């Protein structure tokens, strides 16, 4: 059976004035997401995570263009769709939750108007049925007394509540996939936990697939089934969540895991030397080689291709894949 969403060899570039500068923000990204699955997309800022998401919903900045590749949603290639067709897909089949809820909510419309909109357009609900649906959606994201809260405007809600409302809007069109781009970065830790648990519950109830974009490996450990680590526009490693945490193969993944403080452990943290590279002037060979601790001559010249990890994902690295190098946990 075909996966729900299959992204194959996606390349999205940003073009500068008269094509003088080309930024390869997404450069040959492939992954697939099944129904009911949570897929994590991890990486530092500027690695292309967000451009990947914007490519999927086809809401790219005017300077960006999908150069090649395909994005198949239930077998249909979204790259070939017109914007008019995309409007019928966004909100109904793919929904998004963005980082800053205040930026996704319109301050001039009531919560009711904003949650009702997808159901009004995509499911043609009207009157009492629509009202009932909005109430259900708000109750599902645990908004206390939804009947009263519906009349409120975004500024009357707290940060955690606003993000719940965004969650309700994402659910309103009963989508198959929700793309959550750093949805909890602006929330406090205890509210973050509530929100993550809520998303999991909604997923269990509706078997919607989640694409979780984050730089926080803790969120990945808590939420995801499968994880892709992005670096300089490419997926450098993709594995099941346990595979990634216990048998990570790519030096970048290992370095990321070693750089996070663990509770109650005082050992020295490992910082990755250097900076993430400039995407318009990538180093030759493997993009990570200037920062890599295990760099070899080959890495400086030849770009590593994607090696399969016997059925459980893949890695882009020249280091030999054997069990010794993977001794972790």
């Amino acid at each position: 059976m075909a996966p729900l969403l299959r992204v194959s060899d996606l390349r999205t570039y940003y073009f500068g004035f008269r094509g003088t500068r080309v930024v390869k923000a997404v450069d040959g990204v492939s992954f697939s997401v099944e129904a009911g699955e949570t897929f994590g997309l991890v990486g530092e800022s500027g690695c292309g995570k967000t451009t990947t998401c914007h490519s999927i919903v086809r809401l790219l900045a005017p300077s960006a263009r999908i150069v090649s590749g395909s994005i198949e949603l239930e077998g249909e290639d979204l790259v070939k769709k017109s914007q008019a067709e995309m409007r019928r897909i966004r909100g109904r089949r793919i929904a998004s939750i963005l980082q800053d809820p205040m930026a996704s909510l319109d301050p001039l419309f009531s919560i009711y108007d904003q949650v009702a909109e997808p159901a009004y357009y995509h499911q043609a609900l009207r009157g009492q049925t629509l009202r009932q649906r909005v109430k259900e959606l708000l109750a599902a994201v645990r908004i206390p007394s939804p009947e009263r809260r519906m009349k409120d405007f975004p500024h009357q809600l707290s940060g955690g509540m606003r993000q719940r409302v965004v969650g309700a809007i994402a659910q309103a069109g009963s989508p198959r996939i929700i793309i959550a781009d750093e949805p909890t970065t602006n929330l406090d830790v205890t509210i973050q936990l509530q929100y993550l648990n809520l998303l999991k519950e909604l997923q269990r109830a509706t078997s919607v697939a989640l694409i979780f974009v984050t730089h926080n490996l803790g969120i990945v450990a808590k939420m995801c089934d499968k994880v892709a680590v992005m670096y300089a526009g490419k997926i450098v490693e993709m594995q099941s969540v346990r595979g990634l945490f216990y048998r990570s193969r790519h030096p970048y993944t290992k370095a990321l895991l070693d750089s996070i403080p663990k509770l109650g452990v005082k050992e020295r943290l490992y910082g990755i030397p250097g900076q993430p590279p400039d995407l318009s002037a990538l180093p030759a060979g493997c993009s990570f080689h200037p920062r890599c601790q295990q760099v070899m001559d080959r890495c400086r010249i030849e770009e590593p291709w994607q090696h399969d990890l016997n059925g459980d994902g893949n890695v882009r690295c020249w280091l030999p894949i054997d069990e010794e190098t993977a001794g972790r946990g």
Partner: protein
Amino acid sequence: MDRPLLDVRDLQKHFPVGGALFGKTRGVVKAVDGISFTIKSGETLGLVGESGCGKTTTSKLVLAAEEPTAGTIEFEGRNIAELSRADLQDYRRKVQVVFQDPYSSLSPRMRVGDIIAEPMKAHEALSSAEVRARVTELLELVGLRPDAARLFPHEFSGGQRQRLAIARALSTKARLVVLDEPVSALDVSIRAHIITLLEDIQARLGVSYLFIAHDLAAVAHVSQQTAVMYLGKLVEVADSLELCASPLHPYTKALFAASLPSHPDEPREEIVLSGEVPSALNPPRGCSFHPRCPFVMPRCSEQAPGLSEVSPGRRVACHLYN
């Protein structure tokens, strides 16, 4: 018995709210409501709490940028409220700050050398050769090349800018640096660098830190002592490792439960707090945490628990423990 570098006692800061000019105020926000802690020379106190709990007000009070409503701050044994103008200036030289966002805390119109030199020029009479020598030394200390002094902040990445902010804070030989969420705005791989840099600097110079953050794991990593704050009050103060091993206050427990796991199979006590932090304008009666507390008792809604010592060096404000 060595005296602590900083000794904060029953510190309070209340802000009047509402009421236009000449109007009556509608109430007070008790942003900081009677907190006490000490920081020893060369040590770090971590201050954790969610947004709006009073962490930043505390830092402003310590920096003498706000005047406390009540309570005292003693630095090197002297109450800072009673310092003369000259002594207060000296206090400000010795207590410096690094802010969260290195993009807004460095002037885009000044060269890095001038940014770092500004505090020492304000506080000390130095020749330009001395200033230059010290800027070079500071840049090396934070791991940047000396020729960085000629550049502007926009030529640096977020992590490098935070290094510049640290260099500026250390330029007047500060004894205490207030670090207000110094790594929250940075990428994960850069955070580790800044944390280890701060640790190395402390080992070399013996400077003390007040490390304010909401990431419990990072706070516990950097600091010897950790204080947990909720709605203007400290609810638990303990040795960082002890706190991680056995959090006592229900709020601390919940924070640990909410902190994200370091691997997928990490066991977690599931304490999901219901509701949100109540408004500081109208805090609940009794223990301010009781409406969200999973272990709430009848007493909690009537009487606010005081911070009392449950074992040496460990203070908890909860009726469960006294």
